[in-house]
């Protein structure tokens, strides 16, 4: 049951009515949410639900033990490492075992040693990368005493890690931000519900109208990329940035919108990344919940440890940081290379004065950005598009061949726009996306001009109709695979 399906619409409608009409106390609301989360997960696999709840229960009790034993360093450390080993262990087992076996066999054969290992059949629990990171942050925050779990109950904790809108594709909520909300009494807030609904509509539009239509076209070109003109490959590389962005941010918007309609604030995941001035700016705006997680739990401790090593320490910490980001996406060398590529892109910025410093786009009359900033945005976009070739390719060799093919003599031939797969309306909707995002970036996200109710109705009706009329073949969100 995907968030962009009719089944989900009915499921959520029932949840919404019961949640706000029948349940007054936050305790009942939380228990109901846990049941709803479980039902949602059962649509995929009920057996793996037991694993999810079981692993959550173990981490919850280990977290409690860490907190109870805050005066005893040895016990606290023991419970902390046990918890870490348990949560990361299951992630490694489910997601990375076969990668390690394959890599070991390949490496041994390079050395001329014959080994008789073969990969094993492992069913990967849906959302394992997301809920494991939630569990790890829970343990670390308690261990660092930045989060107090004393008021948590088992069911509120389980509601947190299984929260259905974010279970498949995130965002990865932090315990500090999410769990206190479950303890508070939630009252029906009309404005938040309207805002949540609007965000769902916007997310649906991005996912179903832009991403799914682009997906048909891009997948077709990628399947036969060796037969395509270089110009087509360049267009597809550019469009893939839009596909990945609208697919993932669309799904995130739906998750945040659903959370908002249930009175819960879910972490932001995107902040107009298409208008990034450099790669550091891009990562401050792209998949924010993952990058901030890695920054807080990996980069910051590492850069603190290596602070005396100066810029070298910083570079190593950043590269390690991005290797983890890359590897988080999947057990594949190409994701490691993708992470490494982005890590290396930071190196010039470290040596530039104010290279890493955040600043807003300089604008002139009528809100037009400065020419230099426009060039910076385009340059960042191009780098991201190239890195996404590594991300999209079936393997590293294909990524390399695709990249090389983009610079062949057919670069100035007319690109193939397959109308069957990519209607002209999709390009029109990309333009709509950019215009709306430019407006929201200047004002604030989801703002309706003049704050008019009529315009809000119009916005929602127009975009719902666009979803109904122009949605592509429904595809799984790309990030649900991770």
């Amino acid at each position: 049951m995907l968030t962009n399906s009719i089944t989900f619409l009915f499921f959520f409608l029932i949840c919404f009515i019961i949640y706000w009409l029948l349940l007054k106390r936050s305790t009942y609301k939380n228990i109901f949410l846990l049941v709803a989360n479980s039902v949602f997960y059962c649509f995929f696999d009920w057996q793996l639900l037991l694993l999810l709840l079981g692993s959550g229960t173990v981490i919850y009790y280990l977290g409690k033990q860490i907190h109870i034993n805050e005066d005893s360093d040895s016990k606290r450390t023991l419970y902390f490492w046990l918890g870490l080993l348990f949560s990361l262990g299951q992630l490694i087992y489910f997601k990375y075992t076969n990668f390690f076996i394959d890599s070991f066999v390949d490496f041994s054969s390079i050395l001329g040693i014959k080994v008789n290992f073969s990969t094993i059949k492992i069913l990967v629990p849906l959302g394992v990368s997301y809920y494991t990171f939630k569990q790890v942050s829970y343990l670390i925050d308690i261990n660092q005493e930045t989060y107090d779990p004393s008021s948590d109950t088992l069911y509120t904790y389980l509601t947190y890690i299984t929260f259905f809108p974010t279970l498949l594709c995130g965002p990865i909520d932090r315990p500090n931000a999410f769990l206190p909300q479950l303890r508070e009494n939630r009252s029906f807030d009309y404005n938040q519900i309207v805002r949540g609904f609007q965000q769902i509509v916007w997310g649906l539009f991005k996912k179903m109208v832009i991403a799914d239509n682009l997906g048909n076209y891009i997948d077709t070109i990628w399947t036969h990329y060796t037969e395509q003109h270089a110009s087509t490959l360049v267009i597809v590389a550019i469009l893939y940035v839009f596909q990945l962005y609208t697919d993932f941010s669309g799904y995130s918007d739906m998750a945040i919108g659903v959370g908002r309609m249930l009175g819960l604030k879910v972490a932001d995941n995107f902040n107009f990344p298409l208008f990034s001035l450099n790669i550091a700016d891009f990562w401050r705006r792209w998949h924010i919940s993952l990058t901030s997680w890695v920054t807080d739990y990996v980069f910051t401790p590492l850069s603190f440890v290596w602070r005396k090593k100066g810029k070298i320490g910083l570079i190593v910490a950043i590269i390690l940081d991005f290797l983890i980001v890359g590897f988080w996406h999947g057990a594949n060398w190409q994701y490691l290379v993708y992470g490494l590529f982005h890590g290396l892109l930071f190196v010039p910025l470290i040596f530039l004065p104010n290279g890493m410093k955040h600043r807003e786009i300089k604008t002139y009359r009528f809100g037009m950005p400065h020419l230099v900033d426009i060039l910076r945005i385009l340059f960042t976009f191009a780098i991201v598009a190239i890195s996404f070739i590594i991300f999209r390719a079936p393997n590293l060799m294909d990524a390399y061949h695709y990249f090389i093919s983009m610079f062949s003599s057919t670069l100035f031939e007319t690109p193939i726009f397959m109308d069957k797969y990519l209607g002209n309306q999709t390009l029109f909707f990309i333009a709509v996306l950019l215009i709306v995002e430019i407006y929201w970036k200047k004002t604030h996200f989801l703002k309706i001009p003049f704050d008019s109710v009529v315009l809000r109705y119009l916005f929602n009706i127009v975009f719902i109709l666009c979803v109904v009329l122009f949605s592509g073949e429904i595809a799984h969100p790309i990030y649900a695979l991770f």
Partner: protein
Amino acid sequence: MKLFYKRALVFVILLFLSALGIDLIISNHLQQSTHRIYLTWNEMSSKTFDYDAVVFGSSEVWVGCNPRIVSDSIELKTYDCALDGSNFTRILGKYKYYEAFNQDPKVIVIVPTLYFLNGTRNYEKEQFFPLIYNLKFRKNVLPCCPLSWSEKYIPLYRYIGYTREVRRGLGLQSIDCSYPLVDGYLAQPRKYNASEYGHSKSFTFYKKNEVVESFKLFIQHLSDKKIQIIFAYPPLLSNTYHKITNVDEMYALYQGIADEYSIPILDYMKDDMTLDKNYFYNDFHLNKKGSIIWSQKLGHDIKQLLK
């Protein structure tokens, strides 16, 4: 909360009305088109539609029987009322639609095939979308070509995922008429391509009991109306015929029905033309050249029967 309910209700009503308006525009535009999947439905319900002989069947008839050639032989205006990718249940829907708008024909030729009495499938169901506001269609055809409750009652719902139809209906894409229909017939000027079915080692005649019963009731209905019924097995490539594992079962079933209602059977499954691949574009379907030959033979044989 009251404010929310009020505004939510207003929103739903506005959304419904907007969807209904767009649905009507799309459906109306599609219905007026001459695209092959809409054309026969439009023709059958038009006032100028006037035919004495009708051929019912699946794709074998659609691409195989040129009604103008048959008309010339039998001297009765003939229409190819086949429905591509369909079995009897959907073809019955087409007959009922025909019946709802027209006088009974004098002759009905039914072309049964291997999969004629199999269960239904909703191939190219988008052809029914623009007809949803037509009451005769809802009454007669929908029971045979089921659409879901949501498709029937929620405006635009049935168009979800049919972007091509939406674009055509809104005038954003031209309606492709590169395959013009002639009295319901579609000529296929193609050469034989073995890969379409050629790799199949065997073919089996399937039947579903409820479909057989429904077919018998249909024959009874035509018989009561004193309409001349003729069964005609279509030509299929000789090699394909020999791959049918239970062809006798098929013959026995139709023979039984034919005997009961004194229906003559014309059999082209083993006709000489089935030995020549030049008349086919795949194992089951005649190309334009083959359809001319078969239509001439069919016309000639029907003429003999009608004498």
